């Protein structure tokens, strides 16, 4: 039985729903020695801004129970290098290029999206939810009116590129933000970014991370993410990229059943550099075992 694993995100077809989560996979270069990128539905690149960003002081990462905290602070080389080095690298592979964009101000987001609208990116994912950058970022993703405005502003310059807004779980009601970006004209939604957390080093009587707080990711956050994907799937009509603690095919299928059309795998890459490819084959095995001919049959099947 031929199994169909192809899914569509705002008109862009992916050979399977497995993507990499922004920030955990660079632009695929480093992990390409372990994973055949052409076997993935797409690579979501690390957040890129108009100019290079330095990021936060170290320590930037810390393990926690079934998860980790990070406060990298969106260190990135800026769009010039990204367009010359990273995107051309990804163009060698038969995989979708989803470019994650970050900024401090509306102007910075707009400028980046304007430039990327002329690039080989297939989809733009707009990060309005990074908890580790003080100015901008998160504030756009936690106030519905601002989320709508920033969506409108980037959509106005995105040309034909579908725009997915990446939402923060650090809000009282994520469906409010989802509805706001839908009203702003978003083509899709990515969720969830990390949960704001903190760890204290009791021997040093100090914060474990130099940034004091960091974003929690990994299996610890998965039930929160599945719940939020389900809530958002039932409150907007947009396609969703679901993420948060996916470590195996079964986890990915939970997200699909909750209503995500595609999934991003992040922190799990650190525990097993080959995990993305294993999830692709694991999903196929599950579909075969369950005699499901088309993966689209299970998207949002749990109501």
């Amino acid at each position, binding site marked *: 039985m031929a199994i169909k694993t192809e899914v569509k995100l705002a008109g862009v077809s992916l050979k399977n729903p497995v993507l990499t989560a922004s920030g955990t996979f*660079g632009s695929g270069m480093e992990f390409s020695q372990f994973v055949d990128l052409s076997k993935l539905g797409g690579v979501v690149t690390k957040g890129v801004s108009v100019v290079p960003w330095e990021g936060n002081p170290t320590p930037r990462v810390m393990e926690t129970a079934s998860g980790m905290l990070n406060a990298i602070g969106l260190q990135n080389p800026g769009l010039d290098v990204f367009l010359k080095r990273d995107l051309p690298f990804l163009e060698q592979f038969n995989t979708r290029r989803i470019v994650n964009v970050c900024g401090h101000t509306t102007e910075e987001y707009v400028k980046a999206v304007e430039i990327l609208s002329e690039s080989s990116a297939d989809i733009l994912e707009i990060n309005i939810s990074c908890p580790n950058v003080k100015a901008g970022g998160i504030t756009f993703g936690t106030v519905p009116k601002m989320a709508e405005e920033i969506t409108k502003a980037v959509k106005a310059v995105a040309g034909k590129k579908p725009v997915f807004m990446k939402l923060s779980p650090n809000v009282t009601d994520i469906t409010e933000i989802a509805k706001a970006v839908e009203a702003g004209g978003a083509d899709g939604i990515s969720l969830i970014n990390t949960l704001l957390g903190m760890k204290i080093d009791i021997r040093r009587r100090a914060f474990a991370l130099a940034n004091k707080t960091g974003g929690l990711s990994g299996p610890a956050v998965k039930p929160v993410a599945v719940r939020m994907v389900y809530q958002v799937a039932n409150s907007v009509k947009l396609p969703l990229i679901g993420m948060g603690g996916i470590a195996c095919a079964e986890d990915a299928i939970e997200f699909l059943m909750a209503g995500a059309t595609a999934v991003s795998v992040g922190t799990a890459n650190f525990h097993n550099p080959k995990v993305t490819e294993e999830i692709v084959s694991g999903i196929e095995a599950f579909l075969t075992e369950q005699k499901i001919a088309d993966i689209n049959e299970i998207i949002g099947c749990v109501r």
Partner: protein
Amino acid sequence: MKYSIGTVISIKKIGEGIFDLRVAEPGIARDAEPGQFVCLYSDDGAHLLPRPISICERDEESVRLVFRIAGYGTKEFSEKKPGDTVRILGPIGNPYPAFTSNVIVVGGGIGIPPMLYLARKCKEAGLKVTTVLGYRDKNTFLDEEFKAYGDVIIATDNGDLGVHGTVVDAIREKDLDVSLVCACGPMPMLKGLSKYVLEKGGRCYVSLEERMACGVGACLGCITKTKQVDGHSHVKNQRICTEGPVFDASELDW
């Protein structure tokens, strides 16, 4: 760099909380050079991040890893038995350059193990090797093995053994020629040592460590500040796992 499943050949306790582990993985062992490290992964999915551990020695079949129990992961590795498997990634990072002049090899605490392989390599290259090792007290480890490659000077924090004080105190006291120094150990030691060596006009290479997540250069968790703009992000952050862990001390922004 290879991601693989290694097999434990042997394990023994060689000091208080310090273990000597040999893991068979020829693909990693054959490529390993002094200063490089591996990542070992916990078998427990609740402990996600790989543990970077320096390569103490190698042969054609296996790597030798000497580590201190610092938490859950290293405790798990210390309880491995011969024949057990462990997921391993490596060899990782840039090694020490190939030297052509006599060298002082310095190790402090759990920074001592990677210097053993370097000392052997330098000795095999026909160089004179002088080793300076810093310990807290008389509970030393690996010091006997360094004697095969040249003179060994010991410094202890409490004065139990050798020079009372730091490795820098020992180097100063013995008035060693510091034209070329390689070191691994705690950050304050590396800072003090490189300041001393650079002021004397010598060259100093240091192995750094930092909290890491991916181990392959993708996550940008383990950066160190440098004077020059880096090739990856075009800021002044080198990745310890990729451009390091060995750095020319004069290039770091301490």
